[in-house]
């Protein structure tokens, strides 16, 4: 169990943990925007951790460079997609959930 294996295990466990929290947030939050809040941030961090973990496990090669490229790309792409979805939802008439309203 050298250092890279330990790092790999830790990164993948962290990735899985944040994937779980994002999924719980997606299922339990009361409103469209709060669900978007959970998955937009939770999934971005989880993908980044998992991909960095896989890149470490791959060692130093062209393939791990591609994996790190995917990680950086997802780190930029996920917030863009989240913004696009939330703007589309807001512009199409979805109102944020207020305290006294029913869950939607």
């Amino acid at each position, binding site marked *: 169990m050298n250092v890279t294996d330990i790092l790999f295990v830790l990164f993948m466990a962290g990735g899985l943990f944040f994937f779980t929290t994002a999924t719980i947030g997606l299922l339990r939050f009361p409103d469209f925007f709060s669900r978007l809040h959970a998955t937009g941030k939770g999934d971005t961090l989880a993908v980044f951790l998992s991909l960095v973990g896989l890149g470490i496990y791959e060692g130093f090669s062209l393939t791990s460079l591609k994996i790190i490229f*995917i990680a950086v790309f997802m780190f930029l792409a996920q917030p863009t997609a989240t913004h696009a979805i939330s703007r589309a939802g807001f512009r*199409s008439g979805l109102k944020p959930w207020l305290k006294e309203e029913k869950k939607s």
Partner: protein
Amino acid sequence: MNEYLLSIGMGLCVLVFLILYRVVFGPGVFNRMVALSAIGTKTLIILLIIGFLYNRVDMFVDISMVYALLNLIGTLAASKYLETQGENY
């Protein structure tokens, strides 16, 4: 180490099935889109894990790179369409 990768992949598959609840019962089309983009990121990681398990990482890295790009473009295109054609409009 392969067993560890397999268990991570299994965990992700369980999470995908949990998200399917939101895809099916999501109150509106926008909740379904959030769930689909969440499933897309999980599938990306599952693809890479399969690549590691089959020891063909260089092929699967290219596949997952294309998948990440298409996931983004699909989400952007769908949200641009739903902006004006959404159900509440």
